[in-house]
């Protein structure tokens, strides 16, 4: 096997850099979808190549190991490298299972907090300022009195429109896909964060279209974040609120997705080298068995 099998890991880092540049020129809806798909494809290529490397360990197993003594079997990959690949793959799958479990468990618990009687909204009488989209069929908004009281009527409308946009476009799925990719291949973690951020931007833009006032949405995002900052019981740092507010201060982005050509090219290259690696492995397996 040649260098092809190692390339997806290296190209993951290239993808992260290319995506960072690309999302600046892409509307949030296209960026959220495009980066989620790119992350999934990249994780699949990475996992496939780790699996191919790990499978080369099979030549140490009976009955192949008996033939090993004959000394005529190709040994394509040093044993420790193959073992490390197997360990990385196992670690990634372990993290993936943990991420899936955490997401399911969290959504299940929040669904259990209450079912909406009307308007697709459940209010929780709690001072901590929270509004979350609880995915499901059809899903609902869970919002605390702490947040509702920090905002005026028009701003409450923004929050509800924002959360409904998350539900309508199933942002939870796109974010879960990117998170799964980052669990399998930790090098892709920046893509998970990009998808999460772009999903917030997407919902901000939908809310702005809904209420017809970008400045109002910007003010609302800022006020809600500052309310959370004053009551930092559950605060989570670095989620791009400032960038969201700034973006709402600029004109609405257009819908072009051409900015994603770079990431798509990198993903195509990863897929190609993975296919090359798979073909090489197939030739190897044929040699073993032949």
């Amino acid at each position: 096997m040649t260098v092809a099998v190692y390339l997806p890991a290296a190209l993951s880092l290239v993808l992260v850099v290319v995506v960072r540049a690309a999302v600046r020129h892409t509307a949030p809806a296209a960026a959220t979808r495009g980066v989620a798909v790119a992350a999934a494809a990249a994780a699949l290529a990475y996992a496939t190549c780790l699996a191919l490397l790990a499978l080369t360990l099979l030549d140490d197993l009976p009955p192949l190991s008996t033939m090993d003594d004959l000394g005529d079997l190709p040994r394509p990959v040093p044993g420790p490298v193959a073992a490390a690949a197997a360990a990385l793959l196992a670690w990634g799958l372990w993290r993936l299972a943990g991420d899936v479990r955490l997401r399911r468990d969290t959504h299940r618990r929040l669904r259990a907090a209450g079912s909406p009687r009307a308007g697709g909204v459940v209010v929780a009488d709690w001072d901590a300022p929270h509004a979350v989209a609880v995915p499901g069929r059809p899903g609902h908004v869970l919002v605390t009195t702490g947040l509702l009281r920090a905002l005026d009527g028009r701003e409450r409308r923004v929050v509800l429109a924002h959360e409904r946009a998350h539900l309508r476009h199933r942002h939870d799925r796109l974010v879960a896909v990117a998170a799964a990719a980052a669990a399998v291949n930790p090098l892709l973690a920046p893509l998970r964060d990009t998808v999460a951020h772009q999903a917030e931007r997407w919902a901000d833009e939908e809310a702005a279209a809904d209420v017809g006032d970008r400045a109002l949405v910007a003010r609302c995002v800022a006020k809600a974040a500052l309310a959370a900052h004053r009551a930092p019981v559950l605060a989570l740092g670095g989620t791009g609120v400032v960038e969201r507010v700034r973006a709402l201060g600029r004109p609405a982005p257009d819908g072009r997705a051409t900015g994603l050509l770079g990431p798509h090219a990198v993903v195509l290259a990863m897929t190609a080298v993975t296919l090359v690696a798979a073909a090489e492995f197939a030739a190897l397996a044929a040699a073993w068995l032949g």
Partner: protein
Amino acid sequence: MAATGRRPHGALEAEVLAALAAAAGPVSAAEVRRTLGRDLAHNTVQTILIRLLEKGAVQRRAEGRGHVYWPRHDEASRAAQRMRATLSGRPDRIAVLRQFAAGLDDDDARTLRALLARRPEQP
């Protein structure tokens, strides 16, 4: 995808519920209408309140010439209890949610306050 989305009735119901939840106590239809911050006929607000009442989402009592309304406290506190149990001290669970009021560091908070101060307040 059939989501809670664009149905105007549902959206207005949610806004009225949110207004009632934000109010300090039971409020009349006229007060709800004022706090919504959008141009709605009194009758529309009244209709939504009646619908919320029929769905068991709010309660009311006679006061003066009309009624005052308030959300169901039992369900709101139960929701709070369960939400708190799910999220308190669990940043990992919070991290998987699409959440509106995201946390900030002190630098971000300063920047946001400056941005807010620069924006003209809406009437």
